[in-house]
């Protein structure tokens, strides 16, 4: 099985975010990490390769800093990487990101493409499904299990309210992977060393420019959400906080 894993670099979960001068995006001088569901997607691809042989290729788009995500993936065991390297990719909507990816892999023959189920920054939850449609492939979303069989694959989709569903589908296919589908591995020292010799194919904006167009949706402004609730801060030493809170639990909220 030849598997492509789409990965994204996003601001760290607890990174304090500030707006930039356009007020339509954040200042980018923050710490970054791999988008969490994408890490599970990578892990699943590595496990599938261990079972069925083949190749795991990772792809990302973004400026030079995004290469870190690819390096980590290579250190964990991915075979090679593709980096659509340009700051302009950060501002693309899901439709254009998928178009850029489709253009960058047009000479490849994958059996499966994995994405995380959504990103921690935009949170559109669309890129994987759009990519499937652009490629003319079937897809399934929010996947918790993948078994290869004679005709293709059987996947376990997570539905809402605790329900699941098995879906049989042919290959090639795109799957969006749910967090928690597996247990993540750590990169080993030897893996980190080997990663240095693994190839990263760089794709410049110019190479995919003809495939992408204007964004179909535009962020007019970004802002700190207005609070709809009046929040009372409880302050003091831990012991004082405990006393104040228990008083509220007992006398105002009446649950003690």
């Amino acid at each position: 099985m030849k598997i492509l894993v789409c990965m994204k670099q996003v601001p760290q979960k607890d990174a304090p975010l500030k707006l930039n001068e356009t007020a339509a995006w954040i200042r980018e001088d923050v710490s970054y990490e791999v988008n969490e569901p994408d890490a599970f997607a990578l892990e699943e691809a590595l496990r599938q390769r261990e079972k069925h042989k083949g190749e795991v290729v990772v792809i990302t788009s973004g400026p030079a800093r995004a290469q870190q995500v690819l390096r980590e993936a290579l250190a964990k065991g991915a075979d090679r990487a593709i980096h659509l390297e340009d700051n302009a990719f950060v501002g693309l909507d899901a439709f254009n990101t998928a178009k850029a990816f489709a253009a960058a892999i047009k000479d490849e023959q994958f059996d499966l493409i994995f994405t995380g189920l959504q990103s921690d920054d935009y949170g559109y939850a669309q890129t994987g499904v759009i990519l499937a449609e652009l490629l003319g492939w079937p897809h399934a979303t929010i996947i918790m299990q993948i078994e290869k069989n004679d005709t293709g694959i059987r996947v376990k989709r997570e539905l809402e309210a605790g329900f699941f569903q098995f879906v049989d589908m042919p290959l090639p296919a795109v799957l969006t992977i749910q967090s928690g589908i597996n247990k993540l591995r750590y990169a080993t020292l030897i893996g980190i060393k080997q990663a240095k010799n693994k190839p990263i194919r760089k794709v410049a904006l110019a190479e995919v420019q003809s495939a992408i167009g204007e964004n179909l949706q535009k962020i007019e402004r970004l802002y700190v959400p207005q609070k709809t609730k009046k929040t009372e801060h409880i302050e003091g030493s831990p012991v004082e906080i405990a006393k104040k809170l228990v008083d509220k639990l007992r006398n105002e909220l009446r649950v003690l």
Partner: protein
Amino acid sequence: MPDTILVVVEQREGKLNRVSWETITAGQAIAAATGWTLEAAVVGGTASTFAAEVAAKKVGKVYAVESPKLEPYTPDAFAAALKQLLTAKQPKLVLMPHTYQVRDFVPKLATAMGRAVISDCIGFKHENGKLVFTRQMFQGKLAADVSFNSDAPWFATFQNGAFRGDKAEDGASPAPIETVAADIADGVIRNKPQEAFKEAKQAVDLTQAEVIVAVGRGIKEQKNIEIAKQLADALGADLAASRPICDNGWLPMDRQIGSSGQTVAPKVYLALGISGAIQHIVGMKGSRTIIAVNKDSEAPIFEIADYAIIGNLFDIVPPLTEEVKKVKAELAK
């Protein structure tokens, strides 16, 4: 002809789900702001059996999009059927609830029409004749107003709980229902879905809990769960968690709160070390009182908290547990 808003509602197991009504409320609000006409569509094997329920609401018309191939749900069939409807009726704006099912097919549908979806919206604004949709970004830390930069149809999905389903207005008289036979060619459907099932029988029902103590990533290690458990025991509360805790196996999956777990509305929800990602918030924002303990003062959980304690849960929780025990012991005297 005036511009039209089309709400595509969702049915599951023969029932329209709650978010469908919320999306109708959203559609009615946008119709009132823009002066556009509101219509609705029901999609399924026997969609017409649900259409009357929707037609009772204040909508201009209801389309029942039917084909035996729409049962069971597949993204291929739904996208094909809706593309036909939208191409024929040409609505300006198409609204759907942001459910797992809609997430599965709407990006495909929009892409097939060369259009975009503004997904997981929590509101809209109509400013100087321009329609913008508000959605959360960066896990709820920031909000964005997003506009369409393409021709119609425009697609937007609304987050669970963004509008009040019970505020959907009834119509003066039932709206006309038009049954539309979807033409889905052989070979269009590639996926073969099996019956939906529940994993193990859910042992824990948190929906009835009066008080919930929930833990998130801030708990750091499995052994620290005990700290939260002791507080829960002292309070007589149920212990719950955000998704990462259950993914790690630190608490069983049936204690998970959020979009992929249970939706709860206790009297008191005590969130310990939970940042408040959207997927968690949708499962607990209906709680009567939310108390949040988090060391990150910018954690989105504080946006919806009634009481905020900014601090390290390892400092805050043990004395709190002691105080609860002390007061309970006094009350028992």
